[in-house]
């Protein structure tokens, strides 16, 4: 029992995600289909964030190319659904496996790189796929996109709630896998590698192999998000590989809390709500996103989900400290 409690870590780490999941399950009973679709997009963004958080939050690997795997998940899912008789779930699984394979192969080189090179090459990988999707017209339809031939049972026009529950169900399974991964010994070893890779190596930990493992898993998680996004969009464009998608993974994780299990879920809800309401007033949602991100980084640098210092509850203290530091700087500037 104590061992289980130790493994789970502080409830503040995972309970917000659990509460959000339960709320998400009840949601369609209370709101219109417009909000159900909003929640569905939040869930997809959350998976993208979870993927980034696995890498950066737990293993210290800053990937700026999770769109590569998200997009692969989307494209492979649509390609398999459209070109074979198998159902959506099998197609989704194929998307996840394809992304994981690409990660396992590219990762053999990528995970050995220095942090900056890792950022650049993960970014380049996503770019490469975007280019390919744009130019392989016969396969992908190029920039006209590719319509997903989904059965009526999975059409948002026929039944939003049903599609929503499929998305929520799959996301819950993926989240559970990620949870088990980070809460077991594998997660602990990765956090060790994040803290000091040389120390980990000199303790005999196969750092590169562990990094490759989490890189592959994170790719699968992002691909699941991409595959699920097909359900609400019903079409896939090369823009699923765009850097903005990778940036969203990063933004929701930073907003919610890096290295917090609930971080991406909280961040995705926050970002989703902001974009939804701001989107009614202006088309410049990116501007508002930027302001919100800046604000959160300034007043709650560890994310809204973090407890204690640097968390949301300590925001007034953090703000005061920053103002004082600014004032000190101004005084020093005036006198010096």
């Amino acid at each position, binding site marked *: 029992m104590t*061992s289980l409690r130790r493994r789970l870590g502080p409830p503040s780490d995972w309970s917000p995600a659990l509460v959000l999941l339960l709320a998400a399950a009840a949601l369609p009973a209370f709101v219109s289909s417009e909000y159900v679709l909003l929640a569905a997009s939040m869930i997809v963004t959350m998976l993208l964030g979870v993927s980034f958080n696995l890498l950066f939050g737990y293993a210290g690997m800053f990937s700026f190319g999770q769109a590569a795997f998200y997009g692969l998940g989307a494209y492979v899912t649509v390609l398999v659904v459209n070109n074979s008789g198998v159902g959506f779930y099998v197609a989704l699984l194929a998307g996840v496996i394809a992304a994981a394979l690409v990660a396992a192969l590219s990762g053999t080189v990528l995970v050995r790189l220095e942090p900056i090179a890792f950022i650049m090459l993960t970014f380049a990988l996503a770019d490469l796929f975007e280019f390919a999707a744009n130019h392989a017209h016969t396969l992908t339809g190029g920039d006209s996109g590719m319509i997903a031939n989904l059965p009526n049972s999975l059409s948002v026009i026929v039944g939003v709630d049903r599609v929503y529950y499929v998305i929520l169900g799959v996301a819950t399974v993926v989240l559970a896998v990620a949870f088990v991964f980070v809460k077991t*010994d594998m997660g*602990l*070893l990765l*956090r*060790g590698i994040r*803290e*000091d890779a*040389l*120390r*980990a*190596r*000199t*303790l*005999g*930990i*196969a*750092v590169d192999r562990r990094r490759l493992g989490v890189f592959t898993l994170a790719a699968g998680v992002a691909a699941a998000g991409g595959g699920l996004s097909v359900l609400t969009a019903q079409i896939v464009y090369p823009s699923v590989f765009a850097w903005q998608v990778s940036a969203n993974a990063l933004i929701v994780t930073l907003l919610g809390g890096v290295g917090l299990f609930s971080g991406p879920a909280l961040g995705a809800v926050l970002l989703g709500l902001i974009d939804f309401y701001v989107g009614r007033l202006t088309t410049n949602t990116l501007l508002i996103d930027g302001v919100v991100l800046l604000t959160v980084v300034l007043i709650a640098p560890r994310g809204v989900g973090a407890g204690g210092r640097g968390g949301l509850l300590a925001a007034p203290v953090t703000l005061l400290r920053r103002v004082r530091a600014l004032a000190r700087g101004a005084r020093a500037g005036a006198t010096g």
Partner: protein
Amino acid sequence: MSPADVSQVLELRDVARHFGGIRAVDGVTLAIEEGAVVALIGPNGAGKSTLFALMMGELVPTAGEIRLDGLDMRGLSPERHSRLGIGRTFQAPRLFAGLSVAENVRIALLARAPESRRWGPSGWGVSRARASHPTPTHTPPPAQPHIRPSGQGHSHNAEPTNTPTPAQARISPPAQTHIPPATESPGEDELEAALAEVGLSGQRELAALSLSQGQRKRLELAMVLALGPRLLLLDEPTAGMGVEERATIMRLVMGAVRRRGLTLMFSEHDMETVFAHALRVVVMDRGTLIADGAPEEIRRDPHVQQIYLGSHMGVDAS
């Protein structure tokens, strides 16, 4: 080089490491016998830390060879070095700073490689690398005394009848030394024992970064010992400590070395510590090895005295 009946754990032959024009380590030849307690001394910049990094595989030698039980270690990763039984601490302790003390040790317990059953008090295990290695499997347990060539120091793992070093005399009777098979996943008992051995049981839930320098050194020692190494490489185990803390950590180190029958090499600036514990002293200066022998010889060596002029060379800690 040495008689075949002496088991050399680690052998360095003409090892060099150059950084551009700087010869950090330049032609070091050194053999460390099983059970030896060797102090590596020398002024700052002598190349001690570089030598440690070479012995751990963090750096690849520019020239020369390093052998562990005859196995050529060149090109092997630090991971492999660790798995083959070398445990190493750093001058500035390297810990998983953001994690708790308990998590730090737990990681070390997890890292203990199942495929290379390391040396425990029960004797030699045969790892894959060792099994494929041409030298015959060693049968004697580490507590076996060894014949040494003259001038090579004395066996640390001497029989109880030998005159104990001051360190040994201070150490309380051996505690339980059972190291469970590496395939077992680390249990709470094992974790608690590892923390208790270095006196950090009360700090187990603290973040490693909140520890004092002395506690950090102790935690790093606990992590390295948790691996069940056979050769300990400690880079300045007493750096940045007060007199009392220094004595404490050395008592812990020597206790672990004796109970587990480890081979120890440590670099050190404090001459009292060196002469209190080392059975052999190796002196480096500007990348080269300038003296190697029993503490008494080193103390009398004019070259060494010249380098350490004005330091504590004259202090007789024994």
